């Protein structure tokens, strides 16, 4: 043991040496400090979210006013909006890149990247990640992915427009549609960078959680957000390589003439030589990633909500263990349900039935989580901070969007509902809006930790209500369009007689989308203004229990001065009867809270229980045991 210790010291001495001479470049650009990397992920994520949102407004203009010309669009978009009307190819590109950016760049990298980097070391009591260098690499690969994806807008043929799921043959044949050429190539390169980034990040998060917890922080004392981020990282490690495998085959089909996914294809009257391939193979591989991916998106948001609801209800989270087991259940089940994206691909109905059952079972852990949130709120001493409102908003979206999942998960109903606006409504509520609300909730809550300043509350309220109402106004009507059979991704839906009546609804939805988009200006102003001019934060502004609030407000390398604090209790001792304050830090030993200790706090430690009993006898307290 002694020699091992010495060994490690020499191995590490070399690395530690490099950290202390910070220049502008090592501090702000190629930083290896997890807190700075978290900020980089967050700001890049927000930037991508704004861009992806603008894309959505562009295609909403087309959907709301299909026959109207907007000359300003031609000014900005040039040939893609000749005569002020968005072209069909570009419309598809908008939809595709909006989806890709939101799912991968904003809600995977922006959400997991930010909060894993910020919170895993800070809440577990580690000085940094397992490998700060890989952590930096993870960010810069993500940044590169963003740049390449944006770069595809500046190509002659335009960005990829095969949909965010890039099904072959549209993605496999460079000549298929305009975006299948260079746009698709860039999309694939960008995604390879992104997957590398996500994987490196996930490896780091898992290793840090498992190996670098401070003294006393056993797994069952971890805050729920850490559990969520940890399981999210596991999902990433198990599912992203599958996407890489699928993409490798796709690249060979595109560029080398193999036929993994291609068969019997005729382009412009000419038959292609490719034979024997199976486009369904892509769907299997893609959705084996694709479905866990939606949990990669929502689980960190659920974790953030757990923290924020507990802190701002001043109550312990209801059913901590049930919450963890639900997350584990969701993690496991997410690998068994990919077939529900493929019910209508000619799948054996029996197999469809199996996927239907596994899919519907996910409702159980999801419902457990929902009810636990509600039970935590119940009779809490609620503080409606902006973060709390966003957390409650998430619960609302998770319920209203989750319920429609029961319809879509049913393989018989899916025959009618697949590829309609019902699907769009479902996933925009349950994983789109819910996850975005989780992310915003996290930003409002941890802003003081990120930037040492407070965000403006009034603007936060304005932002919340406009966004909350806006999101429902946008997505709720889509359910009815879907039930009527209006397909998603159609450019000129008014060409079909039965869809014409939905024009007014589309107009309404577009107005709501514009309102919700404008509401984000309140957030952006608040975010960037508060970063420099916000009220200075105190160390623990929300009176929360977790470790990150025991660090000094100003960031320092290594997070804590001197020793890393030890942990003595779980993170949810809020409003504990018998205690003067309504929160007890995780670092507070039981010996300092004799008046509020409960028998089960000691986890069967007889000696500690005896000491507690003696103290209670001496102080005239009626024993709680």
């Amino acid at each position, binding site marked *: 043991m002694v020699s091992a210790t010495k060994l490690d010291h020499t191995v*590490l001495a070399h690395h530690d040496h490099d950290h202390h001479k910070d220049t502008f470049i090592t501090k702000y650009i190629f930083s290896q400090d997890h807190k700075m990397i978290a900020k980089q992920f967050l700001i890049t994520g927000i930037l991508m979210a704004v861009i992806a949102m603008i894309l959505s407004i562009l295609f909403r203009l087309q959907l709301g006013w299909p026959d109207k010309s907007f000359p300003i669009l031609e000014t900005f978009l040039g040939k893609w909006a000749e005569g002020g009307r968005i072209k069909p190819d570009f419309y598809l590109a908008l939809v595709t890149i909006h989806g890709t950016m939101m799912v991968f760049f904003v809600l995977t990298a922006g959400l997991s990247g930010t909060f894993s980097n910020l919170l895993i070391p800070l809440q577990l009591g580690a000085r940094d990640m397992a490998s700060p260098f890989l952590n930096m690499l993870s960010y810069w690969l993500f940044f590169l992915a963003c740049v390449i994806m944006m770069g595809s807008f500046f190509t002659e043929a335009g960005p990829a427009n095969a949909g965010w799921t890039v099904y072959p043959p549209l993605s496999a044949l460079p000549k298929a549609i305009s975006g299948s050429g260079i746009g698709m190539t860039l999309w694939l390169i960008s995604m390879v960078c992104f997957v590398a980034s996500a994987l490196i990040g996930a490896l780091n998060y898992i290793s840090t959680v498992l190996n670098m917890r401070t003294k006393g922080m056993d797994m069952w004392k971890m805050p729920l957000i850490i559990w969520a981020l940890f399981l999210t990282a596991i999902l990433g490690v198990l599912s992203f390589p599958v996407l890489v495998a699928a993409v490798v085959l796709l690249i060979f089909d595109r560029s080398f003439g*193999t*036929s*993994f996914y291609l068969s019997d294809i005729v382009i412009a009257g000419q038959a292609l030589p490719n034979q*024997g391939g199976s486009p369904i193979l892509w769907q299997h591989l893609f959705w084996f990633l694709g479905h866990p991916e939606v949990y990669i998106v929502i689980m960190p948001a659920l974790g953030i909500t757990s923290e924020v609801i507990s802190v701002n209800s001043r109550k312990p989270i209801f059913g901590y263990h049930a919450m963890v087991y639900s997350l584990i259940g969701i993690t496991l089940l997410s690998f068994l349900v990919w077939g529900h994206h493929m019910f209508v691909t000619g799948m054996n109905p029996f197999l469809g039935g199996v996927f239907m059952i596994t899919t519907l079972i996910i409702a159980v852990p999801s419902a457990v989580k929902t009810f636990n949130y509600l039970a935590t709120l119940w009779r809490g001493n609620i503080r409606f901070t902006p973060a709390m409102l966003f957390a409650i908003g998430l619960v609302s979206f998770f319920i209203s969007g989750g319920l429609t999942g029961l319809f879509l998960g049913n393989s018989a109903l899916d025959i009618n509902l697949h590829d309609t606006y019902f699907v769009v409504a479902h996933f925009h509520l349950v994983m789109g809006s819910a996850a975005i609300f989780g992310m915003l909730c996290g930003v409002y809550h941890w802003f003081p930790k990120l930037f040492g300043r407070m965000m403006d509350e009034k603007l936060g309220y304005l932002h919340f209500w406009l966004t909350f109402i806006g999101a429902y106004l946008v997505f709720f009507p889509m359910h009815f369009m879907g039930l009527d059979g209006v397909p998603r991704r159609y450019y000129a839906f008014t060409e079909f007689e039965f869809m014409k009546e939905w024009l007014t609804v589309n107009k309404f939805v577009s107005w709501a989308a514009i309102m919700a988009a404008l509401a984000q200006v309140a957030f952006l102003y608040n975010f960037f203004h508060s970063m420099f001019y916000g009220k200075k934060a105190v160390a623990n502004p929300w009176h929360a229990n977790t470790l990150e609030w025991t660090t000094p407000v100003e960031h320092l390398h290594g997070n804590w001065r001197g020793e890393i604090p030890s942990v003595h209790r779980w993170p949810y001792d809020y409003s504990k009867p018998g205690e003067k304050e309504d929160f007890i830090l995780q670092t507070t030993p039981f010996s300092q809270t004799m008046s509020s200790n409960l028998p089960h706090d000691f986890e069967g430690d007889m000696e500690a229980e005896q000491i507690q009993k003696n103290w209670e006898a001496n102080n005239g307290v009626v024993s709680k045991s």
Partner: protein
Amino acid sequence: MRRLLNEEDIRTLRARKFLMWLFIISSFMFFAALTSGFIIYTAGSADRGLKIVLPHIFRLSTGAIILSSVTMHLSYLAGKQEQLAKQKIYLILTILLGALFFIFQLLAWQTLIREGVYFVNFNASQSFIYIFTGAHLLHIVFGVCILIYTLIGTIKNIPQNRTVFRLEVGSIFWHFIDVLWIYLYVFLLLGQ
């Protein structure tokens, strides 16, 4: 204070070694996806499937890589016992065997091409052979890079305990790609 720092260092080091295990898991998933893809694809129609006898050179490459795992382990043991000369020789042997494996695989490709089993193929089951072996060869290249990095360390005479750490991480990976190849080979054999 010093004692405490050491404890933190141990945690960091253990965490870094663990990264390699996690990388192996993700790499395993990559190959699991490819082989599952093969199964799904091949099951789709009777026209698909390997329909060939695999080149016998694969047996030689299997022998080479198993042997390299042995030398790798011997190098690691020598490193732990601070037998520097032995450690270096076995390390070099491992690298050479890795290179030999690489050559055998290329020869196997040559044999396949001679038999008319091309990569660009309307029976993609046969294309999969190249995908499996090619992706595995990338791992071999990566593994050899780690070993060369370790070798450079020993030549530069870095502290022995750092060499042992590199050897340990390198050997975890090297044994993994050995087992991985055996998995792929058996998988292909069962498919033929």
